[in-house]
C-alpha cells in the first residue's frame, strides 16, 4: 500500500534531517539507521499486492495457482541483504566513533575539522 511507502519516505526524510543537523556523532548514526529502516519499509511496500499472502507454499497454497495468490518475493529477498548491510555499516560507524572518541575525546562532528581546504 502506498501509505506505507509514504511512511517509509517520511522516515528517510526525518533520518536525513537528523543526520544533517544533529551535532552529536551518535545522533548521526541513529539518523542513518532510521534512513535504513525507512528504505527497507519502502522496498517491502513496493512488493506488496493487496489481498495476497506470503510466498511460502504449504497445505492450502499449492504451487499451481501461486501466480495470482502470492506477494512479490524478490523485494523481501533484497531487503534481507539490505538489513544486514545496514547493520554492518552502523556497526562500523560506531567503532569509528569509539576510536575517534578514544583519540580526541570529543563526540561532536565539528571537532574533527583539521583536514580542510
Amino acid at each position: 500500500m502506498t501509505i506505507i511507502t509514504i511512511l517509509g519516505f517520511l522516515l528517510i526524510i526525518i533520518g536525513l534531517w537528523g543526520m544533517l543537523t544533529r551535532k552529536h556523532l551518535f545522533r548521526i548514526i541513529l539518523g542513518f539507521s532510521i534512513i535504513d529502516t525507512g528504505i527497507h519499509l519502502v522496498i517491502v511496500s513496493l512488493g506488496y499486492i493487496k489481498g495476497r499472502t506470503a510466498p511460502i507454499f504449504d497445505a492450502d497454497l499449492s504451487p499451481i495457482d501461486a501466480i495470482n495468490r502470492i506477494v512479490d518475493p524478490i523485494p523481501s529477498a533484497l531487503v534481507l541483504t539490505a538489513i544486514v548491510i545496514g547493520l554492518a555499516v552502523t556497526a562500523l560507524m560506531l567503532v569509528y566513533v569509539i576510536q575517534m572518541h578514544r583519540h580526541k575525546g570529543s563526540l561532536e562532528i565539528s571537532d574533527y575539522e583539521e583536514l580542510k581546504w
Partner: protein
Amino acid sequence: MILTIIIVLGILMLAAAFMALYLKDLLSAIIASGAISLMASVIYIILAAPDVAMTEAAIGSGLTTIVFLYALHLVRKKQEDKHD
C-alpha cells in the same frame, strides 16, 4: 481495520523517530530507535513478508540496539575515567 493499525503504527514510528533524534538522554534515544524497528517488523507482518519481519525484529531492534548500547558503554566508560 488493518488501515487503522497501520496509521497508528505509522504515527508511533514517526514520533519514535523524532524522540530518537531529539531526546536529551542517549540511552532512551537508542531505545526509541529499537522501538522503530520493532514497529517496522509488525508492519512487515501486515505486508505478508514474514522473513523480513523476523530479520527486522532480530537484527533491527535486537542486535542494532545491543551494538549501540555496547558502544555507549565503551564511550561512557572512557568519559568517567577522564572525569574522576
